[in-house]
């Protein structure tokens, strides 16, 4: 087992470790646990780090105010699923068996959650989803539904990406999708949207497998088929391969890429290097610390910089992960207090009743209801672009 994986199995004692070892009165009472099962040993994914950061900042704030249930501290328990669904299932089983564990957050890989949906409901395990975007994770058919998402979903990402393309003058669209449940989810969303939006012509869909060497060729074949813009659904590794391949093409043969946000779950600049500057690449996002005006933005941004040892908010990796996790933990802590117990079924019900949370991303009137387990909405989604330093900047409305 690698050192990284060992570390990931470590239980972080949240109140003590990251934020200067301040001790709180609530430390003496039995802690309430929150799990995080994510791809810690993945070589390029930064989303576990971002999610952990968001969780830790929120937990620290909550514990400072006296914890939950009248003084019990929150603590984070981490598990490494290595982005492998079968490992995720084993981890979730283990976490579900933990006393006083109220909920588990997942990482960015939709497949790792998909294959555990049955298990999650069997063990009445609350799954808080700060990232994974496949629609089917929340629209899972279970009742009561134990999955809550504060994140993007594919059926919002698709229209936002395509409408942006249209604004840029591209009506002939080519799509590159991964051969996974996440790809399938986007494929469905795409077909559904295109059935309505008749202004678009789909020139083709190209499926790839993770690590596919021919991803560049797929992009080029879409161009050959007349695509004016390419929609890319994938993660940072395959995204970087695509960008590097694009950089070798003559400039007049390239078309712009609008990408789903999987590529922002890793450091694309590190992976693609100078080629990133060559690509006309835009990406879907839900949050950025840059230019954020809400009162909590500065406070969380500074805490994140301190926690990660960064010099500027521009360096915060995968900001959406930090923001989503942060808001989810605050919503959860309210639900715990509402339920008045660590019983997960009760907390699940309470999550649907939390009201008026003034969060980092926005003011949530009622984040979750029995009918709706999505805390964000399509209006929260925007387009961002990579700056030269690798930071993601929101594009101005109406700009190209």
């Amino acid at each position, binding site marked *: 087992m*690698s050192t990284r*994986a060992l570390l990931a199995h470590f239980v972080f004692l949240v109140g003590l470790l990251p934020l200067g070892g301040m001790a709180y009165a609530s430390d003496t009472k039995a802690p309430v646990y929150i799990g995080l099962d994510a*791809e810690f*040993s*993945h*070589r*390029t*994914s930064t989303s576990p780090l971002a999610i952990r950061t968001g969780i830790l900042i929120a937990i620290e704030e909550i514990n400072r105010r006296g914890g939950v249930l009248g003084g019990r501290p929150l603590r984070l328990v981490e598990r490494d699923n*290595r*982005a*492998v*669904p*079968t*490992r995720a299932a*084993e981890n979730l089983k283990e976490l579900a068996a933990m006393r006083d564990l109220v909920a588990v957050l997942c990482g960015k*890989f939709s*497949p790792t959650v*998909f*294959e555990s949906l049955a298990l999650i409901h069997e063990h009445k395990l609350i799954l808080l989803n700060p990232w994974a975007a496949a629609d089917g994770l929340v629209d899972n058919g279970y009742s009561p539904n134990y999955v809550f998402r504060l994140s993007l979903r594919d059926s919002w990402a698709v229209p936002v990406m395509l409408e942006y393309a249209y604004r840029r003058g591209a009506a002939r669209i080519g799509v590159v999708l*991964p*051969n*996974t*449940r*996440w*790809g*399938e989810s986007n494929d469905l969303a795409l077909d559904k949207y295109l059935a309505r939006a008749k202004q678009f012509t789909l020139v083709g869909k190209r499926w790839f*497998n*993770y*690590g596919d*060497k021919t991803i560049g060729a797929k992009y080029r074949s879409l161009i050959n088929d007349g695509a004016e813009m390419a929609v890319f659904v994938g993660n940072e*590794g395959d995204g970087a391969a695509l960008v590097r391949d694009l950089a070798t093409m003559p400039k007049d043969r390239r078309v712009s890429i609008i990408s789903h946000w999987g590529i922002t779950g890793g450091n694309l600049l590190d992976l693609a290097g100078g080629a990133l500057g060559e690509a006309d690449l835009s990406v879907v996002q839900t949050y950025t610390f840059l230019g954020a005006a809400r009162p909590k933005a500065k406070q969380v941004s500074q805490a994140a910089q301190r926690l990660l040892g960064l010099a500027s908010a521009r360096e915060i990796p995968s900001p959406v992960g930090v923001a989503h996790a942060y808001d989810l933990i605050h919503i959860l802590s309210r639900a715990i207090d509402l339920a008045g117990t660590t019983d997960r079924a009760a907390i699940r019900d309470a999550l649907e009743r939390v009201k008026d949370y003034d969060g980092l991303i926005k003011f949530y009137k009622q984040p979750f209801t029995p009918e709706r387990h999505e805390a964000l909405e399509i209006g929260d989604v925007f387009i961002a672009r990579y700056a030269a330093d690798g930071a993601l900047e929101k594009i101005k409305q109406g700009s190209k």
Partner: protein
Amino acid sequence: MSLSPGRYAWPAIGPVQRFFRWLESSISHRITAAALVLTLAVSLAIGSVSFLMSRGLIENRISQELASEAELAGRQMEFALNTLVVDLSGLASNAMLGNSFADSLGRDAYLAPFLRDYSAPIGVDTTLTLYDFLGRPIAGTAEKPRSYERAPWLAQVIDGGRAHSEIVRGADGRHRLVMARPVVYPSTGLIEGALVMETHLDDAFIKATSFLKSDLGRCLKDERGETLVQAGPLQHDDLVTVTHPIEFSSLLLPYQLRIEISGERARILAPLYRTAYAYAGFAIFILPVVVWSSRKIGERLTVGLSQLSAAAGSVSAGNNEDIPLPVSGRDEVARLTAAFNTMIGKIRESHRELERRVVERTVKLHAINSALEREILGRRRTEEQLRVAANAIESAAEGIIICDLDQKIVSVNRAFTAITGYQPEDVLGQTPEILCSEEQTPAGLIDTARTVRAQGHWKGELWSRKKSGENYLEERSVSSIQDGRGTITNFVIVFSDITKHKKDEQHLAFLAHHDLLTHLPNRTFFQQKCEEALQRAVRHKAQCAVMFIDLDHFKIINDSLGHAAGDELLRGVAGRLQKSVRKTDTVARFGGDEFAVLLDDIREAEDAAFVAGKILERLSASFLVSGHEIYVSASLGISCFPLDGQDALALIKNSDAAMYVAKDHGGNNYRFFSAEMHSMALEALMMASSLRLAIERSEFFLDYQPRFDLRSGRTTGVEALVRWRHPDRGTVMPGQFIGIAEKTGLIERLGEWVVESACAQMMAWRAAGTAPPRMAVNLSARQFKQPDLIERISSILKATGLEAGALELELTESMVMQDPQRAAVTLERLKQMGVSIAIDDFGTGYSSLNYLKRFPIDYIKIDQSFVRGVPMDAEDAGITRAIIAIGKTLGLKLIAEGIETTEQLKFLEDAGCDEGQGFLISRPLAPEKIGEFMQCESRS
């Protein structure tokens, strides 16, 4: 004997007696019988001889045929299984498998068809199954894949990253070959599962032997002789069986299997038996004919005689009325009849008298005669015996001592004197103890004497002493001599000097087990000692280690200073190795510059590391060899028991592999064997096979690095550099495959392709008007040794239309120095063609300047290892200046490689270097870029 029934019941006469009577009764019968017997004997003899010979021939022939069939089947089997292993490794390392852990949807969509598409060699049925990290099947070709959840071997594959193969007997009694390879998940670089290939050995075996005739039995056995697969008719007891071993590369499959092919002897010999029956039938048919015809002939011959005999019969019965017999004709029978008549008369008269006298005299004569004869014979025999015995004793090669009852010597022979140096008079009357050496104990002698008295004989080896005082090893036998009544009268000692014989024997044994040059144990003996040490280690739960030692660059020393010096150096190395280890350890030489050390009974692997360090240190001191001071270093590989191998062979093999890794890391160090080396070896194997394919699929391409005149800055030429566009790994640099290509011989085809493509590229540039002046191509060592190199180069030039003057061939120093005479001839011929020659990485080898002077070289390339250090490193700067000076003196042009900084460029220019190449000026470029490049230059 009466045939009439009487008071006693006479036994009826038997058929045999009746037959003899019948035989006696007539010559004609005897002729008939003789003819019959003769015919029978002859036909039986001819029949059985030819039957036996044919049977021998047929059996011999059949077993030869079976042997070659078994070998062929063995090859098929080897091919099939080895291919399976290599295929499995290839499949397991395919990124698609690793990625499939990410998601079950994708997995079902692309992985299942991918695995189903795999077709095994010779149509063997295989199942491929991908297991997750808990040993649960998640994809594969089997309808109901086995679950290996909690199977320790699979856990070892997944947690330990080790390959696994085993033969398993299923519940149905069928044996499966189960092989597993770890599968790495590319996103994390961690092993997330394993690919398992299973194949029924019976299926593979039956397919591998399908070419055999159906009436042949076939059988696959493991090394313990247990039957794994059996097919074909094998019920019969009487079989002709041949066996052929199948040996797999132990890297692939740790098995030794055997193939047995058998044919039913009766079936094989059936045609022969058919012939034999036909022959016998013919013989039976012919016999009555023989009997009938011989009977007829006999009767005709003996008509007269029958009459005579009837008469004679009646005479003897006292019946004379038929005599005289009628005489008719004049033949022998007629004359006989007349004489018979006369004779009968006379006989009757003299019969009684004669008989009496004869009897009397005969008796007397016999008595006298036999007495006389006995006397003469007896004397002769005794004399002869005595003479022979004395002669034998005297001329025997063995020393002989005869003693009386008191053990006093009464007689010795010549050999005694020759061996011991004692004259007879020295020893007569003494006891044999006079020969005793101090190594003999009196007790031993008494035992000897006791044995002789009790058993009459003693035999053994003992050390004795000559008159000169010299000890010698004696083979001695002592016997007692008894008289007719069984009383012991004498003792006789027979002995020979076996000192030399013994020494020869010991020397022979030494030769068989040692290396003649260094007198160290050889490989066989080392292996034997290893096995013994392993057995001890198992008993005492101890560890031991095997080190494989190979001198670095020994060949260069051998080539430059000669074999005698090389041998002297090897002896020196052997001495230092022995001094570096304990007395109980074993140092061996495997041949060449390969040595091995067995460290018996060590506590931990660290001990081996300590000894390895000590060896490297001892070897680092200089050796004085034929007046030269020589420095050598070595590369060491270490494998430990029981961790790295279960038997001597595996340990040696693995330490060898570790040694190669040490060597690859620059030599003069040691490495422990690790499981990755195993996979590295596998990797090399796969690299070799994909390299072979790469040539067929034209996956190679050339980049060209421009070369400049340092003063004018003009491009003087380009160097062609080969790259491999690997389907999975992307672009592979030559450093990663040239070594393997060289080893496998693929370099010849690849090298030729490079020369051809480079020349063709030159012509293409020329057509576009963008050609650089010169094209430099690297030749490999193997290419340079090709006897028809000149013809090949000139035919490429002819085919492409490039003139020889535009081609430059780059050779390394060591290629030329391997066989300088031959190299000189080859270079001279290239020169005559007009091709220019450059010596690559000059200064890194051991070239003799003297040779260099004689070679028709145009350019010397200064190796980038020197260029890298200039101008800051004083040593590199010095060497670089010296190389330039040497080059100038020899009238050669100099090209510096690997120029990366302007400081280096300036230094080289100042030092007088002519041309250069390196990243500072331009990295290697694709052909079209060179075109652009040249265009820019011509415009500027």
